[in-house]
């Protein structure tokens, strides 16, 4: 347990622990994919991973760089068309957990991956929505993973790409959404969870060695902390070994041209 680890490793490991065996998980590329595959290789071998490229029940040996790497289709239980993916599987209600990344987030777990600045005259044009808006509204629950910084955790989003709890309170239900919405936001500093009533994100866990001040400084709003703020359990040797092996295999696979 005395092993050194990076904050990025801690984030991935903390996120992987929130998945449960037997769940069907719709996985975003990047951090969500790393955490979901770590979970599959450690605590939740029977988790079903779905990528929006149409690959269902994938078991990649290396992390995909893109959402459509051959590794995903070759290790899938089934590969369906993209319309079928969004219509029958996501909208059909078969997904337990949607696992998203984001460029920016606000206190009600709304996320922005579209634009910074004015939509019609943007400061930074981001890639856009992709599958996120309907993942966030059609999965039973949502996990969000992103690094915590005052540029990412903002008071006011330029654009809401995918709703979290909208304006908080009951506003999500009032908009017609019957699913649970975001249940946790996992960062390199800790874990935030929505307050049961106000739906504002509250920091419930800090990773080992992270202070309340650090979390506050890296958040663009007046961050609240749980009464019983907990410390995330340290990475186990197994978690670190499996994650590092996975990252090593991945780096090797993507290093050169074919």
């Amino acid at each position, binding site marked *: 347990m005395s092993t050194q680890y990076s904050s990025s490793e801690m984030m991935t490991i903390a996120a992987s622990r929130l998945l449960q065996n037997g769940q069907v998980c719709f996985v975003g590329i990047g951090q969500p994919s790393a955490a979901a595959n770590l979970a599959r290789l450690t605590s939740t071998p029977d988790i079903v991973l779905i990528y929006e490229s149409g690959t269902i029940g994938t078991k990649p040996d290396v992390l995909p*760089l*893109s959402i*459509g790497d051959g590794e995903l289709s070759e290790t899938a239980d089934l590969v369906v068309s*993209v319309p079928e993916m969004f219509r029958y599987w996501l909208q059909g209600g078969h997904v337990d957990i949607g696992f998203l990344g984001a460029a920016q987030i606000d206190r009600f777990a709304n996320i922005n991956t579209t634009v910074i600045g004015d939509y019609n005259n943007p400061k930074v044009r981001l890639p856009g929505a*992709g599958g996120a808006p*309907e993942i966030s509204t059609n999965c039973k629950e949502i996990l969000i993973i992103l690094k915590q910084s005052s540029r990412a955790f903002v008071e006011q989003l330029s654009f809401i790409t995918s709703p979290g709890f909208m304006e908080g309170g009951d506003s999500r239900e009032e*908009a017609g959404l019957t699913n649970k919405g975001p249940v946790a936001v996992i960062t390199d500093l800790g874990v935030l969870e929505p307050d049961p009533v106000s739906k504002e994100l509250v920091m419930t866990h800090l990773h080992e060695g992270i202070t309340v001040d650090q979390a506050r400084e890296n958040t663009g709003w007046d961050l609240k902390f749980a009464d019983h703020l907990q410390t995330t359990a340290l990475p186990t040797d197994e978690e670190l070994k499996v994650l590092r092996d996975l990252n090593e295999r991945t780096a090797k696979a993507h290093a050169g041209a*074919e």
Partner: protein
Amino acid sequence: MAKITTLKAAVSELIDNGDSVALEGFTHLIPYAAGHEIIRQKKQDLTIIRMTPDVIYDQLIGMGCVRKMIFSWGGNPGVGSLYRFRDAVEKGWPQPLEIEEHSHADMANAYEAGAANLPFATLRAYIGCDLPKYNRTIKQIECPFTGEKLAAVPAIRPDVTVIHAQQADRKGNVLLWGIVGVQKQAVLAAKKVIVTVEEVVDKLEPHANQTVIPGWVIDAVCEIPGGAFPSYAQGYSTRNNAFYQQWDVIARDRETFSLWMERHVLDTENFAQFKDSIGVRSVA
């Protein structure tokens, strides 16, 4: 009815300036060779359509072929930004780019409606999302049975759809497999269809229920081995992830981009020459 022809002839005859063109593919089977041919032929004023515009759309935009882009996620998959796309949207270079932006679920449904010859698609979408504020093509519809309000989006019907596939037979029947994306829907929704393939074979040997697109809904089939590079064709090649990472450097700067495109695309005759010029062995 499909004609087996050269890519040069197909692009010249079937794509007009001002057309709406969908070069579809979901990371796998991206029709790069066809995109380059459009650039070589200096097509103008295009509306380009794709769920996941990536490097080849960055090139089309940066080379001034495009007036408008209809899309749902515009990035370099697994790497980051498309700098030519961003430069066009943020700074209007080389010309302003009109965008019409959707979510994946919307576009997948909209192509599906196009293939089904319906004027619109209905879906559970966009609740709490800001896109409908900026994209006036997204409307609401009420279920005539339950009274529920759902999103309604217009069908996509491209003038021309271009896809890359693994095989065609000599009648132009096309077989593709692996991540098949929205290609079948994009083909059936289009007025005209160009398919580039890894190889033309005497006889397709599809397994039961695999994705075959019959030649009688295709206009031109062109044999371009490796025509999806740096994307891939399952069973023929693997994705060249290193190139996508290199693109991040090439595309960041206007001049670097322009010189690269001139040297490797405009100054080459075809996709095999392009690949030679960037030092990638053409795999036949």
